[in-house]
């Protein structure tokens, strides 16, 4: 079974992604010069981006990971409330925090996370996303660092999944509609 067979087109080649991550790394390093930054990543999709981005930073870096439940994850969650599945391991009180996302579409999860993290009293809170899909935005949130603005298509790869698969693809591609239609 080759997962790439399920991809209709490659949206971002591996080399494009790596070049963009390096560029973001330079910008972030310049902006945080003289400061220590705490990268907070949201599992699971942002994991590859986080791993690549942190190695492009030249400033002192701490990392932390969070995971939040997603709507529709289970039948009970559909009538529940978003919850933190994995909370921060360390305090971010007084720290400069950079929230690292794989993709921002509706902004609903990000809106929730920002409110949650602001309640932890960081010295600053900025947002970095590899992919931005503004066509789907419900909650307008200023994003400090955007890798790529992408069209309104269902994408997988480089951490992004469909049904928990395709995260390990080294590129970002558009999933064939027949894959999820079936």
């Amino acid at each position: 079974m080759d997962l790439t067979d399920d991809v209709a087109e490659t949206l971002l080649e591996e080399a494009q992604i790596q070049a963009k991550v390096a560029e973001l790394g330079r910008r972030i390093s310049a902006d945080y010069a003289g400061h220590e930054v705490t990268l907070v990543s949201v599992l699971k999709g942002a994991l590859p981006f986080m791993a690549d981005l942190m190695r492009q930073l030249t400033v002192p870096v701490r990392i932390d990971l969070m995971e939040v439940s997603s709507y529709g994850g289970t039948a009970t969650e559909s009538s529940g409330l978003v919850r933190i599945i994995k909370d921060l391991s360390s305090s971010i009180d007084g720290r400069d925090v950079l929230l690292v996302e794989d993709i921002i579409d509706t902004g609903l999860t990000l809106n929730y996370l920002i409110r949650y993290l602001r309640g932890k009293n960081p010295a600053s809170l900025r947002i970095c996303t590899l992919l931005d899909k503004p066509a789907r935005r419900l909650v307008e949130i200023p994003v400090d660092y955007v890798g790529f603005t992408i069209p309104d298509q269902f994408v997988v790869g480089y951490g992004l999944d469909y049904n928990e698969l395709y995260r390990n693809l080294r590129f970002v591609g558009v999933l064939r509609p027949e894959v999820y239609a079936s």
Partner: protein
Amino acid sequence: MSATAGPGEERRHPAFAHASEAELARILDFYDVRWEYEPHVFPILWSLDGDVLESFTPDFFLPDLDIYVELTTLRQRLVRKKNRKLRRLRELYPYVRIKLLYARDFRMLMLKYGKLALADALSGTVGQVVPAGRAGSPATKSGAVLREDAGALAGSGSGSRHRRGDRQKASTGTASRPAVGAADEATAASE
């Protein structure tokens, strides 16, 4: 009901005109985004006598985000009509921020949350529901229930305000009249 109802507490929802609206309300609830259902009516067309002939009632208002959301899963012919009304709304009320979610947008949202089958089930007029209190409401040719009759446009808003299921009467109603429009497209009904 408390405004801070927690998980597990019953969340009262208004009688939605379409099951897709109920689904969107559940999503907003899930992500703790406050919403109001049809709290404001925007007149968009008047007769020469000043009577409101046509209006637009966005499905949701998200007060903390100051944005309206209109959701449609209807077929393209009705979407064109809605697009026209939306353009008119934007001309007359340029300060109003509104997001129109088409059937495709709703489908993609459901795909994101692993509920594609639900999107298919609610597409078109299939998801239309007739709220108990509106059984006598006028209906369009497609069978869609009109949410407000022309008389309601005069000012008595009856939207619902929610935060995690909290329900209060909204105090808002018809927006002020900015201009007199042509009457040739009058339908005397809001969407």
